[in-house]
């Protein structure tokens, strides 16, 4: 249901007509069919009653539509078309409900004014934080990143104002994250990647030495999400999100696929199940581990279980007997950003650490 307030005023401010219209937009004939009129429907402003050639200064010199109560605001961008004495203005973007459209039509030595618009939509606070990764409640002191997922697409531009890390006294830790203005969202706007400030994690940097790491071993922190964070519709979150995390020893060891436990499928329709030696990065454990046979990637579904410690693969088609590999891409990271063969934070004084990430690690298994 569209409700519209239309006001018609002749030049000089005399009120000619003021009509509430409910339902679909109607042509207002208050001034008579041959008289100039302004109407609005389907997001388009129509000014009728024009006669003669097109104005020398363009249609926007005779029909002005302003999407603001501020008279100094510029006119809306849009396209003008004239046909049979009716000038049609189609805004560049459909006006946001609740925004008033003030139309002014200079025609036949008079000025017609009208205000249109659709009522603002009520915003329903329904969106929630769906999950916070890492799923485990024990995060190493040098945890590099976390992912927040939401039940619906979120607004951009306010993430770092809305996520707080509280220490065990309930005090907000100052600037725990590296603030990337663009914000690291996925395409759907439902997953945000948040990086703990590497300057405070990496050893030897000023921020690390002066401010210390945001997470301190042996302490508890609370990750809290402020419900005033808007979703993509502009509505706030339905509720506050918070989770208490215990901070554990830093992990300074490359990801070690050789320590994983592989349970090869024992039947044609069984899953392949791999247990890691530590929780791995939620996104990369899904993307960077695959099953190959004869060099080709096997299509299938991946699920992570037990707080990203278990990787379960269900092939699209039943297993055929033979030799397979689990291929581990070198971009795989643990919670602290360590990769296979490569530490996040390399001590160059220790020659054994100065290695490149292993591009691909292949773990063989057999289906009988």
């Amino acid at each position: 249901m569209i409700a519209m307030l239309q006001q018609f005023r002749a030049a000089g401010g005399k009120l000619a007509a003021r009509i509430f219209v409910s339902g679909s937009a109607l042509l207002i004939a208050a001034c008579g069919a041959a008289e100039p009129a302004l109407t609005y429907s389907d997001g388009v402003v129509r000014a009728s009653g024009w006669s003669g050639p097109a104005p020398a200064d363009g249609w926007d010199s005779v029909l002005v539509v302003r999407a603001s109560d501020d008279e100094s605001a510029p006119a809306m961008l849009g396209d003008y078309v004239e046909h049979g004495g009716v000038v049609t203005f189609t805004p560049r973007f459909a006006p946001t409900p609740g925004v008033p459209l003030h139309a002014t039509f200079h025609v036949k030595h008079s000025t017609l004014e009208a205000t249109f618009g659709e009522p603002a939509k009520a915003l329903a606070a329904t969106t929630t934080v769906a999950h916070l990764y890492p799923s485990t409640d024990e995060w190493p002191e040098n945890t590099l990143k976390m992912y927040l997922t939401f039940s619906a697409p979120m607004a951009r531009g306010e993430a770092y104002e809305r996520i707080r890390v509280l220490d065990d006294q309930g005090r907000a830790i100052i600037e725990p994250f590296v603030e990337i203005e663009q914000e690291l969202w996925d395409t759907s706007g439902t997953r945000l990647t948040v990086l703990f400030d590497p300057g405070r994690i990496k050893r030897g940097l000023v921020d690390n030495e002066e401010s210390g790491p945001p997470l301190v071993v042996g302490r508890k922190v609370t990750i809290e999400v402020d419900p005033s964070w808007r979703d993509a519709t502009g509505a706030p979150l339905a509720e506050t999100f918070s989770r208490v995390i215990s901070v554990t020893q830093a992990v300074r060891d490359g990801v070690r696929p050789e320590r994983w436990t592989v349970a090869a499928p024992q039947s044609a329709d069984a899953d392949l199940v791999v247990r890691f030696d530590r929780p791995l990065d939620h996104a990369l454990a899904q993307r960077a581990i695959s099953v190959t046979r004869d060099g080709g990637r096997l299509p299938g579904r991946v699920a992570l279980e037990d707080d990203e410690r278990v990787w379960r693969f269900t092939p699209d088609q039943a297993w055929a007997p033979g030799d397979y590999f689990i291929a581990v891409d070198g971009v795989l990271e643990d919670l602290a950003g360590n990769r296979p063969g490569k530490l996040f934070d390399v001590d160059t004084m220790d020659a054994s650490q100065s290695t490149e990430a292993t591009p691909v690690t292949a773990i063989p298994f057999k289906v009988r």
Partner: protein
Amino acid sequence: MKLKVLGATGIAGVIAAISLSATAAPTGEAKLQSAGALAFAPNGVLLIGDSTAGQVVAVETGDTAKAAAGKVEVADLTGKIAALLGTTADQIAVNDVAVNPASGSVYMSVSRGLGPTAAPVILKADRAGKLSEVKVDALKRSAVSISNAPAADAKNARGQPIRQEAITDLGFVNGQVLVAGLSNEEFASSMRTIAYPFTGGAKSASIEMYHGAHGQYETAAPVRTFMTYDVGGKPSVLAAYTCTPLVQIPVDQFKAGAKIKATTIAELGNRNRPLDMIAYTKDGRDFILMANSARGVMKLDAAKLESYPNISTPIADKAGVPYETIAALEGVTQLDKVDETSAVIVVAAADKSTALKTIALP
């Protein structure tokens, strides 16, 4: 030329290992899905970073005539943009501002809407403060994809890849578009160099950066922002990482197979995020002006940048290139150079209202 930086913290030398060459494929009819970082190539070619589509779009604006003299001033910038686009100011984000050196006109990348489907809009401000749209779809343009993610990437329910690379900054030097990117999954960034015009099979060198702290610890270092600058007669990149001070790398070292030791030339003070940076000459002396999140606007003496020794020992606060802080400039979120005597800035007030202003270069 501009710079957006973060993480003024520590330390020392930087090694950039150019590890791979990726093919940056030119795409056909470029359709913008988002508009973020902006930069200009010569002859009024506007480069737009489109992180959502994973591409850089080059638009031939045809805007090469010198703009009229005078200051560009737009009060209540986001309010005015909202009125132009039929919405409210809280739905508007000004993502970047760039001045076309060919004309002196001010361009802005804007998002209309809040979420992933926010519409990208490119606006131009004239000297009278009038805003108009640059209709990208109606202009000659080309694009190059920067997504080199494998086809088997995880996809969402709509078949879109979940992995994305945020384009953190763009630049242009010697016929090359420079693109700094940061992944939303692996802790990795890239600096791509892509020849312009974008041609079939254009090669882009993807450069992985490493940061050596105190000469002992070394980590991957995402490029936060950069600008191109002539250092000792050599086209160079002045870059800032997510966790490091200002470094410089000669552009001619950006080739496949090279190992680069970049030079840390300034410590910017910790808990500070440089936002934008421009270079200019005044009274025969070279300066860099840098807008920051926490430490106001800094004016750095850019004389003989090549002469600064690499800062390789722990620094308590700041060191290297000397600078003074311009106290009068507060709340600057965007900065770009108009000419050798003036710059445009976007200033945000405490109530989140914004203004586009022209300032005399200090």
